[in-house]
């Protein structure tokens, strides 16, 4: 009850003209970023983190959350109209969104995506208000041993899920990220690792320049390499969905919201899986499964509810354990540190109102996507008509300015360029980027806690597998690794005769 009143007070506190102005422009910018094929939520949040770091913490984090929610929602526009997911989180939305658009029901499909995204975000936000304080309290039981497993589990599951066909590449990306985080002064004895006398390297590879490179510069190169995409002319006449499509599918909305939030909470899994799992569950439970993939409003509703519910879900572990649920949430975590907020199990002790303030920011962002999404559907289509050769140099200029802005170091621009080229090459070879990002973010957490744990246990690895929470996390990690080994998967499938397992192979 105390939490709900703090939440209500936080919503009221953000209802000022200046905050609402920030909500509107940041959400619109997020929607525009999400709509542009190739530009992702991670890039939007990373670029804005570098450009807003001089603002007051509350304003800056509000802007970042609105951009994040807006971008995940904005990608649905492109999925429906162009059959190209605006962000990876909207890939499932193409399956039914585009057939609906081809059937002349584009406006209706955009409306369904808007309502689904709004409801998913609001449900996830409520879960954040209810779960985060409890999870933070539970997190107080975590010691170094548990944080070691949390970091490893995050990288392993992100590597597995983002590279379903070839998990070894996902794990390589994740452990490369962990390795890159080891460059520079370490956090216990301030020894400069892999620096070779360079003062720039001893300061470490900046997280944000690395992210801006891996998601900005690399994306520019990927976009420019592709043949140009077709632009759309019309969204159709009807923009509002039939309310019957929503009210009769309340169970789909609820199920997708729950699944999306849970997928968001699991470290490193994020919005993409939120959408896919919700879509798969909706198809399995539907009375008309044959319509899925051919323009099912239920499928589109499930996918868009699931991915937007995963946004607050991914923020829950950021706030309570300082472990991101997705790549954009990893950037948000870095932004919180920059602004002097220290997320983690102590959050309810050190910053007791912050969880509710973040929930209030999510509330306003959700309202903004609903209002702006329904009111500005047609004008926003102009974003898709901007030729990419006009947009991409502007994005690159922002990447350079953003990398330089935080510390005024030219070295950070080099880091951005290096990670951009590396990210582009890795993408070309089908290495996923999300585990790399997660590895970079979790590298410091892993390093400090592993060495502390080893000191505490006098070098014994036993507590890593005998402490109850550690043991659970160790088993989960082992299960994810085994699930990634094809012969093991086939063996399990044979053992249980489960046909369904074949789709994961």
């Amino acid at each position, binding site marked *: 009850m105390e939490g709900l009143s703090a939440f209500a007070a936080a919503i009221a506190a953000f209802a000022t003209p200046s905050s609402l102005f920030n909500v509107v422009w940041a959400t619109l910018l997020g929607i525009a970023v999400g709509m542009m094929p190739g530009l992702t939520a991670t890039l939007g949040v990373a670029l804005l983190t570098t450009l807003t770091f001089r603002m007051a913490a509350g304003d800056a984090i509000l802007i970042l959350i609105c951009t994040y929610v807006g971008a995940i929602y904005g990608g649905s526009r492109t999925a429906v109209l162009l059959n190209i997911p605006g962000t990876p989180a909207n890939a499932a939305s193409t399956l039914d969104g585009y057939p609906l658009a081809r059937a002349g029901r584009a406006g209706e499909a955009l409306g369904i995506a808007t309502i689904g995204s709004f409801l998913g975000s609001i449900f996830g936000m409520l879960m954040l208000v209810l779960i985060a304080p409890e999870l933070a309290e539970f997190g107080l039981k975590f010691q170094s041993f548990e944080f070691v497993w949390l970091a490893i589990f995050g990288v392993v599951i992100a590597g597995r899920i983002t590279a379903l066909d070839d998990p070894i590449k996902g794990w390589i990306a994740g*452990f490369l990220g962990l390795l890159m985080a*080891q460059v520079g002064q*370490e956090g216990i004895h301030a020894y400069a690792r892999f620096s070779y006398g360079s003062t720039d390297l001893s300061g470490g590879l900046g997280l944000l320049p690395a992210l801006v490179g891996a998601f900005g510069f690399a994306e*520019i*190169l990927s976009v420019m390499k*592709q043949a140009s995409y077709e632009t759309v002319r019309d969204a159709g006449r009807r923009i509002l969905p039939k309310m019957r499509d929503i009210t009769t599918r309340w169970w789909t909305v609820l199920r997708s919201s729950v699944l999306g939030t849970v997928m968001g909470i699991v470290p490193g899994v994020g919005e993409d899986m939120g959408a896919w799992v919700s879509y798969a569950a909706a198809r399995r439970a539907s009375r008309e499964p044959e319509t899925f993939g051919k323009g099912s409003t239920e499928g589109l509703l499930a996918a868009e509810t699931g991915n937007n519910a995963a946004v607050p879900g991914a923020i829950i572990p950021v706030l309570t354990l300082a472990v991101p649920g997705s790549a954009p949430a990893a950037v948000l975590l870095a932004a919180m540190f920059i602004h002097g907020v220290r997320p983690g199990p102590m959050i309810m002790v050190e910053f007791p109102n912050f969880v509710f303030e973040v929930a209030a920011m999510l509330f306003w962002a959700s309202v903004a996507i609903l209002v702006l999404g329904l009111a500005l559907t047609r004008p926003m289509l102009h974003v898709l008509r901007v*030729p*990419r050769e006009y947009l991409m140099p502007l994005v690159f200029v922002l990447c350079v*300015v953003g990398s330089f802005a935080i510390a005024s170091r030219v070295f950070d621009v080099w880091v951005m360029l290096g990670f951009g080229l590396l990210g582009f090459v890795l993408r070309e*070879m089908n290495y996923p980027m999300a585990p790399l990002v997660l590895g970079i973010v979790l590298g410091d957490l892993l390093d400090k806690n592993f060495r502390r744990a080893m000191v505490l246990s006098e070098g014994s690895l036993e507590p890593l597998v005998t402490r109850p929470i550690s043991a659970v996390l160790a088993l989960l990690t082992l299960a994810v690794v085994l699930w990634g080994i094809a012969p093991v998967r086939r063996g399990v499938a044979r053992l249980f005769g489960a046909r369904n397992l074949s789709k994961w192979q």
Partner: protein
Amino acid sequence: MPADRRGDLWFSLLLTVLSLVVVIESWRMPRLQDLGVHPMSAPGLTPGLIGLVLLLLGLLLLLRSLRERRATASPVPSRPAVAGHRGRALLAVGLCLAYALGLLGRLPFAWATGLFVFAFVAAFGFERARPWRTLGGAAAMAVFTAIAVTLLFEQLFLVRLP
């Protein structure tokens, strides 16, 4: 041998060598025992273990690539190295690096940015529109970006520009 598998082979070799270097360098890092530091908190411990995991993954990828190389040695014709338009990606890399490493710092930010944007739009715009229209659009975009970015970030976001 398909191009992506050939890429895997080279990358796995590179990763294996890099991981070995990381493991050796981590081992060579000072243990700081003369400062009374607990040996289990030595700076090289975590990077060394990460290096070992990467070494294992690199070797697995290498073995897999070699096995697939043997399996598809003769009959499968190789397809072009990179599907799509590698030339366009290289042009974008060249223009971006020329701006970030060549122009910035030598010219005032607004001038460098204007030149870069003009060159980028002009280079990629020709395949879409007529030359005079492309050049006009490139010039307009260059002036707009140079002025807007400079004013916006210096005056509104109070950010130092490179």
